């Protein structure tokens, strides 16, 4: 296994779309780093640049301390798992698993041995003679993973490997990938648009937008201290509430005022600037209307099973999402009071979206 390093990569496609702009990233040996972002943010391009399937306009890729920028994909000793699985349809499962080894000139006996051990590990030993077309989606996914593992590459690149699976299989396979990562101690670069996958799988996650990394860090660190409103909105489900506010000096004190909201401004908040207040849905609590920070009307009630998500309309502003343990559906339309968790508020500069750190 080896570390991967992306240094100042730039890539603009002929159609003018900039998929990587001065992209730098370090993935430690044995780390699972997740690149996450909305579609078109350049995360797949970053992966293809590492693989050598795309050639960067500038910058370099280092694998295990070696500059591989000039090397073609077949010489980089990486394995990739594709969203479409990309299994060779004209070859059996065993041949698919052993393809990379055969290309590397490994002896036939050694290939058979290796294919069998990988198949056993992934529970596909009884499928070795089948063709990919005779497999279910989950089985294909396993074969694709197995093909990557069989080669014992320097690192694994996974491009949205779970997005073609149904919800149940997805969570099973997600756990499987986490287990494989732990057992193999493998360096993995994992691309997804699903923030939940990123949060649950990544040792670290890198949130991308427009070919740049907006924030990189451990999942909970990113969740708790998002660097800007984009990251705050992208990471975490249900999505964070962003409330436009203004800092006002009144009655001898500083206040944070927004739609239906008036809070004492925390010390350290810069003066006279538009502030965006961020509160995650789980940090809003129902309260009696007279004690509440905000009063609104319950618009939609969405029972999730383990919790209930309320959409609460406050004044003219956008609905607030509130996660509560339980709420009867027939109480939709009622007026409720909301309290903001004092320690769990995020403040952002409305102009540039950047986080304002309150000491």
């Amino acid at each position, binding site marked *: 296994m080896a570390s991967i390093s992306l240094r100042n990569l730039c890539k603009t496609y002929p159609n003018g779309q900039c998929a990587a702009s001065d992209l730098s990233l370090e993935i430690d040996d044995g780390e699972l780093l997740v690149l996450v972002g909305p579609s078109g943010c350049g995360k797949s391009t970053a992966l293809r640049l590492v693989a050598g399937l795309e050639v960067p306009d500038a910058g370099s890729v280092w694998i295990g301390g070696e500059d591989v920028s000039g090397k073609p*994909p*077949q010489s980089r*000793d*990486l394995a*990739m798992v*594709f969203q479409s699985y*990309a299994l060779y349809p004209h070859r059996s499962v065993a041949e698919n698993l052993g*393809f990379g080894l055969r*290309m590397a000139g490994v002896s036939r006996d050694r290939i058979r041995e290796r294919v069998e051990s990988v198949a056993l590990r992934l529970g596909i030993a009884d499928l070795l003679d089948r063709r990919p077309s005779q497999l279910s989606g989950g089985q294909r996914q396993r074969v694709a993973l197995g*093909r990557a593992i069989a080669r014992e590459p320097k690192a694994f690149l996974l491009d949205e490997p779970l997005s073609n699976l149904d919800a149940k299989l997805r969570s099973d396979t997600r756990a499987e990938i986490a287990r494989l990562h732990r057992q193999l101690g493998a360096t993995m670069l994992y691309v997804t648009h699903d923030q939940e996958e990123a949060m649950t799988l990544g040792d670290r996650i890198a949130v991308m937008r427009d070919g740049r990394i907006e924030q990189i860090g451990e999942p909970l660190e990113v969740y708790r201290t998002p660097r800007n409103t984009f990251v705050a909105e992208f990471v975490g489900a249900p999505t964070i509430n962003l409330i436009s506010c203004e800092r006002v000096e009144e009655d001898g004190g500083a206040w944070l005022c927004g739609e239906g909201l008036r809070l004492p401004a925390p010390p350290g908040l810069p003066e006279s600037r538009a502030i965006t207040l961020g509160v995650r849905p789980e940090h809003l609590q129902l309260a009696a209307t007279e004690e509440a920070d905000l009063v609104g009307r319950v618009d939609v009630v969405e029972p999730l099973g383990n919790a209930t998500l309320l959409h609460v309309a406050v004044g003219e502003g956008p609905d607030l999402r509130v996660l509560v343990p339980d709420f009867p559906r027939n109480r939709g339309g009622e007026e409720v009071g909301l309290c903001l968790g004092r320690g769990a508020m995020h403040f952002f500069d409305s102009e540039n979206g950047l986080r304002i750190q309150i000491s």
Partner: protein
Amino acid sequence: MIPRMVAILGLLFLAAPIYLAALASVTPESRLFEGPVLFPSALSLEHYRDLFTARAFWQPIRNSLIVASVTTGLCVTLGAFCAYAIARLHFRGKRLVLGTILAVTMFPQISIVSPLYLLLRQLGLINTYPGLVLPYLTFAMPLTVWLLVGYFRQLPAELEDAARLDGAGPIRTLGEVVLPLAAPGLAATAILTFIYCWNEFLFALAFTLGPERRTVPVAIALFRGQYQVPWGEILAASIVATAPVAILILLFQRRIVQGMTAGAIKG
């Protein structure tokens, strides 16, 4: 009901000439011109016997087989490399290459017979197999390349990416992944090329001199003598010449249709 009637009528319309030719080829010379009949009154294989004894029809069949097979082999091999490069690699002047390839097919054959004849004579290739294979290649290659480019383009690119990451270089990727998957397309183009070479008349007439290199269509055309046209033998030869092509098409008809419509719709 009506569609079926139309289909049957169409089939009759298409099959009638072949049936009548087959019928005439087994009718004795003396009864050939008694008037149109639908069923044979007397069967005879005399035309076929004459064809292979007096006419030595084996020779043109051998020539045609050699020329068509060699052309087809070269055409599909070279065409596959060329088409793959155009479909997948990035290089300057790709459109120009494709345009030129297409432009070659625009020339009517008759317009280049004379220059080609002079060229082949200079090269000493008149009345030789290469003297037919080379001109056929120039006409068959564009079709092959265009068909295969379409076929290669509709193969999922991720498969080739996967092969490359698995350690296969471009040539091995082509051999291990692309060509096996393109087999229906290759079969279709091979058959179309073979049929084109098998049927080609003008070049074969112009660039061969004696019976030792004549191909089937030319040989049949030259059956007619100064005073008589041996219809029985001509038709027998036509049936013999049609048979291999008909068998090929019957065997591979599904693949041909698949190959020709590849890329038209997402499968």
